[in-house]
């Protein structure tokens, strides 16, 4: 019984959140339109959090993802102002993400700086670069090609609700593609298994012949590029770019991975669990807004719920809530 609580307590908690809003916001919360809406709102966070999972399975962090997201948006927007085509500007922004990830990987894996310290330093560097490139300004209006801003507003029409079309947002599709890719990499390849092995015991993995240094370095490429993708999605959504707009993604992404970890059997990060964590955070924002809960109370509540979920999970694992495993 207690084993069941441990195994499914997190899922039950998440369903309870959904049920709570279904009861309190009866007319709109469980509609398809609202869930499509939520899927679009969490798409950027889903991309960053899925990529964050890749480094967190090794027990590492990447604190620079938020400022990298800001930087990639600013890079693309600045290139737009210099009449670069959309594909060229986006490629350049993604290349910046790759480079940023590479720097993080080299610092953590080759140089051997703690991820917390290394990525805290690059957080500052990427953020400073975003300010430098944009001159601290928001780039918007005619500088941004209409097609770039329209991407985030569009998507295939999947049906009608009353007289209004139901659209499956493009951003949702991008997020689903990224999550699927990360799932394949982590769950279905030797590469992914080895990352988990490093997280379990990096020394044992090394002795077993796993090239720990290179794998660890390469994992940071995922967070770098993932952050750049999310930054571009954000820039498309607001049809503009400023040097701080992605910053909030970092802490929320880490919170989502931790929330997800409460769902897995062994308490390890997993990309689908992370996605569930992202959904819960998105649902909380959406539901509490519709319930007219004050913005600041909303923030306190979201933090408290994360603490409660992770706290219960930790107590469960230590056997306080049941048999010692």
């Amino acid at each position, binding site marked *: 019984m207690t084993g069941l609580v441990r195994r499914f307590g997190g899922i039950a908690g998440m369903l309870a959140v959904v049920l709570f809003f279904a009861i309190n916001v009866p007319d709109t919360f469980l509609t398809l339109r609202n869930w499509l809406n939520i899927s679009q709102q969490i798409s950027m966070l889903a991309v960053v959090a899925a990529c964050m999972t890749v480094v967190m399975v090794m027990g590492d962090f990447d604190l620079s993802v938020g400022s990298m997201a800001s930087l990639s948006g600013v890079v693309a927007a600045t290139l737009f102002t210099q009449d670069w085509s959309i594909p060229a500007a986006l490629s350049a922004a993604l290349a910046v993400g790759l480079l940023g990830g590479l720097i993080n990987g080299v610092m953590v894996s080759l140089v051997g700086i703690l991820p917390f310290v290394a990525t805290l330093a690059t957080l500052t560097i990427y953020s400073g670069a975003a300010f430098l490139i944009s001159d601290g300004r928001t780039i*918007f209006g005619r500088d941004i090609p209409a097609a770039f801003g329209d991407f985030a507003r569009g998507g295939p029409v999947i049906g009608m609700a009353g007289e209004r079309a139901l659209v499956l947002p493009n951003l949702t599709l991008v997020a689903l593609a990224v999550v699927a890719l990360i799932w394949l990499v982590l769950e279905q390849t030797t590469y992914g298994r080895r990352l988990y092995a490093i997280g379990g015991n990096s020394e044992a993995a090394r002795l077993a012949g796993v090239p720990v240094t290179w794998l660890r370095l390469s994992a940071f490429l995922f967070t770098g590029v993932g952050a750049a993708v999310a930054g571009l999605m954000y820039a498309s959504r607001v049809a503009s770019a400023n040097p701080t*707009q992605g910053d909030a993604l970092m802490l929320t992404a880490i919170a989502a991975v931790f929330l997800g970890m409460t769902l897995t059997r062994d308490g390890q990060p997993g990309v689908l669990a992370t996605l569930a964590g992202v959904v819960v955070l998105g649902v909380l924002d959406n539901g509490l807004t519709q319930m007219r809960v004050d*913005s600041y109370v909303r923030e306190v509540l979201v933090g408290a719920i994360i603490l409660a979920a992770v706290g219960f999970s930790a107590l469960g694992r230590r056997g306080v809530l049941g048999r010692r495993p």
Partner: protein
Amino acid sequence: MTARTIFTAGALAALVAGGAAAQEVAVITPYLAQPGTQFYVDGFTAAAENFGWTVNVIDTAGDVGAVISRIEDVTIQGVDAIVINVDPAQIGAGLATAADAGIPVVGMDAGSDPLVAANVTSNGYAMAAETAVYVADRIGGAGNVVMFTFDPFPPVQARGVIADAIFGNFPDIEVLDRITPDVSDGGIADSRAQMEAVLAANPEPGSIAAVWAAWDQPALGALQAIEAAGRGGEGIVITGIDANPQARDAIAQGGNFEASVAQDFVGIGSVTAETVKRLLDGEELRQKVIYVPTELITAANVGAD
């Protein structure tokens, strides 16, 4: 539609509104932590209370993308109107969602956009006219005037145009220099340096009658330069625009900095509420920009509020 059917529809609407639950308006801003925004919201909620509305004030703490998300949320929730206090150019996706659902969006000093039913703000042309005319009157329509303008920023450029026109209308007023200060450091330091150069080039007492600045920072910089040069006693008249706290202090001291113009933030909030009311009552707004009067601040009224 005849006048009679309009009347009937209006009466029906009033009946429905009276009988149904309170109307609900969402106010969404990333900038609630900024003092000006709080005044807007105070003015809005006070007026909304009189109308009996339920008001949901949502602050996204600087996150413009989240403004779009929250607009989508309250659109799904089915609010009666949405008020925004953010550049509409950056939240087009949210405005499109609200428009699609037929929910009116009103800007509270937000900016103009085809999807914003009306934007309530201060009239920059009128603000510039207030101080330019003050300068012209104070110097008796004659003398050399130094202008500080900033044409790259459209709202400030508009102020400069008006001052040009007013000074041009006085044959004995000569614009000595039209300076565009470097604003990367906030605008005070470079304005001071530029003013020092003008003072050095015009050493004769009385050779500069006034300094007209398109916003407060250059006016404060010019004041520093004039005082540092020991020429505070020449009666050079300085005016700014915005009436920020530093400018109010300078005006209250009774020195060269004589006047600035204050926006009525609380008034913008309450007029926004009235504008929402007109939309909810079914009125078709002809004016897409609604101006709230501003107030000339001088030593006579600087302590009044």
